[in-house]
């Protein structure tokens, strides 16, 4: 399964990444599992991408950690929003 991953706000800045296309290994089917998998990338990732620090959207709709990811989805990870 391949997805587009976007980063905004604090995680985007701290991980120095705004966009990547990733191939998900078998067994990564929900947002929570995706986040746990990304945390394995290193200390910086483990620190940044906790479920309390990050919010998420799938295909441009806010989504909960239990939400299912599908092939070709656009997934965004970001800090809590603060517009206006």
């Amino acid at each position, binding site marked *: 399964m391949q997805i587009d991953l*976007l980063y*905004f*706000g*604090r995680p*985007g*800045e701290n991980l120095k990444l705004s966009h990547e296309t990733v191939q998900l290994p078998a067994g990564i089917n929900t947002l929570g599992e995706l986040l746990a998998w990304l945390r394995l990338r290193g200390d910086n990732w483990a620190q940044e991408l906790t479920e309390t620090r990050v919010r998420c*959207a799938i295909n*441009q*709709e*806010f989504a909960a950690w239990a939400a299912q990811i599908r092939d070709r989805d656009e997934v*965004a990870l*970001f*800090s*809590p*929003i*603060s*517009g*206006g």
Partner: protein
Amino acid sequence: MSVSIQQEDFDVGAVMAEMRATSNNVGAMVSFVGLVRDLSYDERVENIFVEHYPGMSEKALGKIIVEAKQRWDLLAVKVIHRVGTLGPNDQIVLVATASSHRGHAFSGCEFIIDYLKTDAPFWKKEVKNQGQEWVVTKDSDVQRMQRWNRQN
């Protein structure tokens, strides 16, 4: 377009004139303008950086406007949100509503800015002399938004 996300500043007078011209039935117009303050929790803010999620931000604002139009009789709505680097006293956001009657224009405008704060993907980073900090959703903003669910 009733939604505009842009770096450039906006002219509130020009927007209101445009809204006024949409219909002879417009009897009331309300505008809310959000500005950059130079103080945040007693720390001096030099400037702010505003980021958004292109595509989703337009969609989220569009949805909020549709809901506002279902609740109140709004003849015209305009939302402008600026992005990029802004300094103290700069305009950040404009929400303008036009209706036949002021009650609808007031409520619609307040509803849209309250929902924008909690449902539209924008992020503000404050640059202070002590360093930089991403602003997070305020509890008071969430409470203001939730008020609308209780009222209807």
